[in-house]
């Protein structure tokens, strides 16, 4: 535990020296953050490898209530992506957001504080430090999102994020109140049998879904995610997407570890929400032409996949099938780790691209694969992993969930596992389409604008973290046996009392590695076969004899996705302007299309606007005189006192 706390202190202080230094602030913060990350990872791996669970009770006096920090397997597992991704982000920030950019010092400071809040939050097993860490995370993330606050869209994104995160925190206060009422103390511990089926248990579940779901970005509470992740600097987006939204999942995992007998409908609701988030997330991603918004919607989709796994595991737990429980939970947890790795990688790659080209618009890029080969390779690795294709890590976690749902086919009366299966298959196919679009439009073909043509490769400080994350993806994909014991321990911590089988007996991981190696081996042999004959590389692409082909004739991102977006238009409601060509000799016509966020545009915005209009009716109370306001306070106080004694 001391090792872990040392790590927390180190990462927290990583931003402070940069305030005073003129030149080396980024390097110092990266060194401190990496040092803290290595120490924290050591402490976490020690617990995951079978070490003892470390606890620390906080002294009562300063915070007026006892606090409890526990480094149990669940916390240790979630600590892995936290430390790894934050260290990578700090290293990336050296080259990406140096002191010449605006608010660099604030950014480094807030990043360090965010790291500390996250690390603190993970090990909290008492309501008070949990909420402190939660609020710290929310506020520092707000500061980070608003780094470029001179842009109005950034300010709007930060505002929406702040409102949503505090609404979720409000629900969390309710959660902890119910916990206190049920167990009599504020420490996290198992709840008695039969609690989950009671009215209070239902309220607890709904509030947890609302509060943690808001943070995780579950549909329909996702609408703060795309603007916030697009507006933040890219290494911050990678931390937010990779780690922060997983804190919502951590909350749900802790909830599931308290309940020994979840009712059937809990798992069904989780699966339904997972399917909804997954399919709609990737559908909305298809319609985006802003690279970072696209990646943000994919985070929503992957949260959907994680919820599918959690729902499957809960169904297994409630019907007494430990095999399905293990597979579902293991798949969900591994996907938490995997997603943070490859989504972090993708955002860092996107940051490199945006940094060089100067815009986030997909339609203004192209041909960057020749000009930025390393970034392109890293982004390809990330796309490969996020589509869940073998032999990388995305496939392994989805494989566990598939295995669980296939096994469940024989058990349940209702074909819930079929929902999981079909959703995963559909999500996989649509994700492949979306990332083919993203990678193809950005890195392949010819540059569509001059800025893209003038692009250059990123500095090494930005390439190294991408390499680290890509290496981690490949390692987990090729050797999943390394993480299986850790997953066993976390799943056992989640299912107190049930007999859980080790993962290695349920899923034949060595065969997977063997086939992955066979795949790579045969690919290598074929590559060698292609090499010997020398080839000519000086011709343009075949264009059917049309002599004046130019880069603007390439397929654009919107046209690539048009088939699917059109097919899904009943759920996406895309908007298009212009493009009407009339007459025999038509002139140039402008055309613009976009897919706005459905919940934000049609539900949240109009609702808040009507609320604002209604609220102006209450303006007459606002006289402008300070004395009147103070009189209101006094009257409220008197009313409350009189009501209390009456």
């Amino acid at each position, binding site marked *: 535990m001391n090792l872990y706390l040392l790590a927390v202190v180190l990462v927290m202080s990583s931003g402070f020296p940069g305030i005073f230094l003129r030149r080396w602030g980024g390097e110092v913060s990266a060194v401190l953050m990496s040092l803290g990350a290595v120490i924290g990872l050591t402490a976490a791996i020690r617990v995951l490898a079978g070490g003892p669970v470390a606890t620390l009770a906080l002294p009562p*006096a*300063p915070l*007026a209530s006892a606090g409890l920090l526990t480094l149990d397997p669940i916390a240790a597992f979630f600590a892995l992506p936290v430390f790894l991704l934050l260290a990578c982000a700090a290293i990336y920030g050296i080259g990406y957001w140096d002191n010449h950019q605006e608010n660099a010092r604030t950014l480094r400071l807030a990043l360090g504080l965010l790291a500390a809040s996250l690390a603190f939050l993970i090990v909290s097993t008492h309501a008070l430090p949990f909420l402190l860490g939660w609020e710290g995370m929310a506020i520092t993330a707000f500061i980070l999102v608003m780094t470029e606050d001179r842009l109005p869209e950034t300010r709007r994104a930060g505002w929406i994020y702040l409102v949503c995160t505090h609404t979720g925190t409000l629900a969390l206060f309710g959660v902890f109140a119910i916990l206190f009422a049920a167990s009599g103390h504020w420490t996290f511990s198992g709840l008695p049998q039969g609690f989950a089926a009671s009215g209070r248990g239902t309220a607890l579940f709904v509030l947890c879904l609302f509060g943690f779901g808001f943070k995780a970005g579950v549909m329909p509470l996702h609408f703060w995610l795309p603007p916030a992740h697009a507006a933040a600097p890219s290494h911050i987006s990678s931390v937010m997407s990779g780690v922060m939204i997983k804190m919502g999942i951590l909350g749900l995992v802790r909830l599931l570890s308290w309940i020994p007998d979840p009712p059937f409908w809990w798992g069904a609701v989780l699966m339904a929400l997972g399917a909804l988030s997954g399919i709609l997330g990737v559908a909305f991603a298809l319609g985006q032409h802003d690279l970072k918004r696209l990646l943000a919607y994919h985070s929503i989709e992957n949260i959907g996949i994680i919820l599918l796994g959690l729902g499957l595991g809960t169904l297994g737990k409630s019907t007494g099938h430990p095999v399905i429980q293990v597979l579902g939970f293991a798949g969900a947890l591994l996907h938490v780790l995997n997603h943070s790795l490859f989504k972090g990688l993708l955002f860092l790659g996107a940051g490199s691209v945006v940094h060089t080209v100067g815009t986030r618009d997909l339609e203004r890029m192209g041909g960057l694969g020749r000009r930025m080969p390393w970034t392109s390779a890293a982004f390809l690795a990330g796309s490969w992993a996020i589509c869940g294709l073998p032999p990388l890590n995305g496939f392994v976690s989805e494989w566990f969930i598939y295995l669980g749902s296939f096994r469940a086919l024989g058990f349940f009366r209702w074909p819930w596992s079929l929902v999981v299966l079909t959703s995963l298959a559909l999500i996989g196919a649509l994700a492949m389409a979306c990332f083919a679009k993203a990678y193809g439009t950005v890195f392949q073909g010819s540059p569509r604008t001059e800025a893209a043509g003038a692009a250059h490769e990123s500095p090494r400080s930005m390439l190294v973290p991408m390499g680290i994350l890509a290496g981690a993806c490949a390692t987990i994909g090729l050797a999943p046996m390394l993480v299986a014991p850790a997953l066993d321990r976390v799943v056992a911590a989640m299912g107190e009392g049930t007999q859980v089988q080790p993962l290695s007996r349920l899923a034949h991981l060595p065969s997977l590695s063997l086939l992955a190696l066979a795949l790579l081996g045969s690919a290598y042999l074929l590559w060698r076969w292609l090499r010997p004959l020398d080839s000519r590389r000086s011709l343009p692409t075949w264009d059917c004899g049309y002599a004046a082909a130019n880069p603007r004739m390439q397929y654009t991102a919107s046209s690539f996705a048009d088939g699917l977006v059109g097919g899904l238009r009943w759920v996406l409601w895309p908007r298009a302007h212009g493009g009407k060509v009339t007459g025999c000799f038509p002139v140039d016509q402008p055309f613009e299309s976009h897919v706005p966020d459905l919940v934000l545009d049609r539900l949240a915005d109009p609702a808040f606007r009507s609320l604002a209009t209604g609220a102006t009716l209450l303006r007459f109370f*606002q*006289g*402008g*005189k*300070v*004395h009147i306001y*103070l*009189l209101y*306070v*006094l009257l409220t*106080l008197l009313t409350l*006192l*009189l009501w*209390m*004694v009456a």
Partner: protein
Amino acid sequence: MSPDFLIALTILSNFVLVATSRVNKAIQVAVIQGVLLGLIPLAMGLGRHPHILFMVAATITVKGWFIPFLLRRAIQEVHIHREVDPYVGYTVSLMLCALGTGLSLILAHMLPLKGGTKVILLVPAALSTLFTGFLMLVSRRKALTQVVGYLILENGIFLFGLLLVEDMPMLVETGILLDLFVGVFVMGIVINHIRTAFDSTDTRHLAELKD
């Protein structure tokens, strides 16, 4: 000296405060109240704890010397010596203060306290000081007298905190001192800005900020 005596003096000082129209007099009364409040924990017999002694010393220094010092400097800058034409006249405010004290006594009688508390006069004193502070905030026009009203409000909350001073001394101290500092700083900035914006510290002009 019994704590009840000091507490009664505090309640009396509230009446004096509400009836005066001179700013200097109001500040003097605030000083006296501050010193009285600082001495109450000693009178309650808690002097044997070293951190309470420290708290007493800090309270007397801050409430008795430091904040009145800042306020007197502010008076020198803005040259306000009298509060003229408040929203609620002096006689009426005196009657309201008496009404508030009576109400506090009734309310305190009906609010149950943990058994074993020796100084039960703390609660009505706290409530009445609270009301007095609010009354000054609501009825006075000049920003400086409003600051004094805010300080009296804080005194009332401090009295409440004295009920808990044995169990959570740090909490009471930190909360109150922090509040005071923040309040004084904010009020200082507000007074300065009102003066530079409107060439006057009459809070009536703040109403122009309404949209």
